[in-house]
């Protein structure tokens, strides 16, 4: 049987035969560890720059995040609305049309982070608000399964959206084990850990033609919950928590449910929201939009998003004027 010691012995013999030329294993270890440390430091420093250079999505997120952090309740005297969500928002709402539709009554901003679910946004909004953002209205766009999900976007979430003091609650709510919790803790402080998923994605886009289409199939979206009782139980727990976050900050919080091809119990959640006094908007009930309004059975295409954006604008026009609490800052 082969053994690594036999190889080591060979190396040892080689070192003895030519002591002046061959490098010793001890020096090899030192060089290797130094090299690893250098690589790590380089990645820490360079990863945001690499992403800024290669990732259109990352640049968009950074730009939107910076804008969101600057939001005040009023912009030129008009209430501000921050739309947050994942690709369902990105592809379902035509931002420019919505802005044009609502101008000058509302100033609309958007923050989209792909593959995010409720916990990403609950803790993400907590941090955003703590860092000074203060829109009049926040509209969180999620489908009911994402509202009920325990999924988070891993290290990227820990770096970008999670506040370190929320870590114990993240661990509890997302059911993290100690290993994952420790990874989140470290990722919160590390550019590299937070960004490596996006960097890998950039590399894969360069290497594999049509990788984006493939990524939609193979990405981990967490488990899909489509059981009415489970969805309502989670909504019962999460809607008040979401509403309370708004109350504490003087912000109107709204949950927006995008259209779906199949039953997703969004109307039940809307009803529950009414009971709990948390607005849940369902501009298109499940099954209303035909499949030709979807790009892939889940995200809307241009035609579908046009209709949905108009309906969203109508919902927003019905909003009561913002309370003075929102304008106090």
């Amino acid at each position: 049987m082969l053994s690594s010691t036999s190889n080591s012995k060979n190396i040892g013999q080689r070192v003895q035969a030519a002591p002046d030329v061959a490098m010793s294993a001890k020096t090899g270890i030192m060089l290797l560890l130094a090299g690893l440390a250098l690589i790590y430091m380089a990645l820490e420093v360079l990863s945001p720059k690499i992403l800024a250079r290669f990732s259109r999505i990352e640049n968009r997120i950074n730009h939107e995040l910076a804008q969101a952090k600057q939001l005040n309740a009023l912009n030129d005297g008009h209430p501000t609305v921050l739309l947050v969500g994942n690709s369902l928002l990105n592809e379902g709402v035509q931002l420019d049309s919505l802005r044009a539709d609502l101008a000058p009554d509302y100033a609309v901003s958007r923050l989209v982070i792909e593959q995010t679910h409720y916990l990403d946004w609950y803790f993400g909004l907590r941090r955003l608000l703590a860092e000074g953002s203060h829109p009049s209205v926040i509209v969180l766009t999620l489908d009911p399964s994402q509202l009920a999900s325990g999924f988070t976007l891993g290290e990227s979430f820990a770096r970008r959206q999670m506040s370190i003091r929320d870590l114990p609650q993240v661990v509890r709510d997302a059911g993290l084990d100690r290993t994952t919790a420790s990874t989140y803790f470290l990722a919160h402080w590390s550019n590299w850990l937070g960004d490596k998923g996006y960097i890998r994605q950039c590399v894969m886009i360069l290497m594999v033609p049509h990788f984006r289409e493939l990524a939609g199939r193979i990405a981990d979206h967490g488990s899909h919950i489509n059981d009415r009782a489970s969805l309502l139980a989670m909504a019962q727990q999460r809607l008040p928590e979401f509403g309370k976050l708004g109350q504490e900050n003087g912000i109107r919080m709204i949950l927006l449910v995008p259209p779906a091809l199949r039953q997703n119990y969004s109307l039940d959640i809307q009803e529950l929201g009414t009971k709990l006094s948390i607005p849940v908007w369902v501009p298109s009930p499940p099954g209303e939009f035909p499949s030709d309004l979807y790009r892939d059975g889940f995200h809307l295409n241009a035609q579908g998003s046009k209709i949905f954006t108009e309906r969203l604008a109508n919902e927003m026009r019905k909003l009561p004027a913002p309370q003075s609490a929102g304008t106090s800052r």
Partner: protein
Amino acid sequence: MLFDTPIFFVFLCLTTLCYWSLQFRAQNKFLLIASYFFYGWWDWRFLCLMIASTVIDYFIAIKIADTEDLRLKRSLLILSLIINFSILGFFKYFNFFADSLHTSLSALGLQVSLPLLRIILPPGISFYTFQEVAYIVDVYYERVPASRSFFDYGLFISLFPHLIAGPIQRPSHLLPQVQKPRRMDFDKSFDGFLLILEGLFRKCVIADNCALIANAAFAGAFGPPSLPSVLLGTYAFAWQIYGDFSGYSDIARGCAQILGFHFMVNFRQPYFADSFQDFWRRWHISLSTWLRDYLYIPLGGNRFGERKTYRNLLLTMLLGGLWHGANWTFVVWGALHGSGLAIERKLTRNRPALLIFPKLIKRVLVFHVVCLSWIFFRAPSLRAASAMLRGLFVWNWRPEFPAAFLFLAIFSIPLLLLDVYLELSGDEYCFASASVERRVAFGLACAVIIAFLGANQANAFIYFQF
């Protein structure tokens, strides 16, 4: 603690630094505590179970070694086997057997309500149970002396690099290493660092990326099973499980070497096997040799005629399959391998002409039969496995398949090439016999590739669930 997470490297660095600053006896005590901490990191309750099991076997082994009474020796051996397999059986198989019995009785028209418990499987229980059984049996047959130090025995069972997913260490190999002082050996440590990096490459780059394709295919993300999706899923899983488990074994061996221990090689280019027998000499070697020495040979091996040899092969592989998990899919997987071994034995004994097939053809054939068996290993149920098999006869092409096949090629061909190199060179890991400078360059290249192509999030090693 997973080997591919940052916290493990913090743990490994701190443990290594403290460990080498201590004297021999203190080293063992410290390493035992560190290993218990490593294990308890999952769940402290499981640690109590492992310690209890270790304590029981420690005292039984001493009693076996001390007594002259053969009947008492035998009784103690049986007692230990019953305790070990009862613990394993309860935690791993209770619900499986209760559920299977319920299904069988229902099929016979008998409605019996059997209790199903919410049992969480303690990590690594199959591995440390097999190691304890090997120790007790070896002490009984006087192949190894019983350890008189609990710290030594406890460390042999729970040394953290092998604790969760092997390689299953033999008492005759590891126990003497635990009992003797160890010296810091830079050559071995250097090997250890490189093994860790190669292991991380196998796990994070190969396995975790192939897992994306395999998971999608088996979850139906490419639509209902069809020939392309089944091929994608099966090949991806074949490279995933190989990269995953060989990567784990390399990291475990690397960590052990940094601490001055040597673990047996667990994989030797298994997909180059030209027969089933050859496959099991190359795949999960620590398990296959355990099954051979503690199950197949005690059952009679090949000593009692052809029929009994086939029976023993089949039985060994069935139990080997069941060892992997409490599901009929693993039983079928074991049965396929057992039948393969038996048929191959029959064919090569009676028709040596089969031996003259070109090696390449035999390798390709064995690889594909192994891949076929992986469908049962990976599928969550027999129904799902048979749906995948039926998919082999359905054609449905989707636009994302070219990208998926290219993705799979990008992440499986490097491991194939690595194996070609290892097979030709006879090295244990890449560039093992090259100069130190080249090996440093190889290690750093591995690190850069892991940094850029390692999958996004840490995934539990597949064998953790066993």
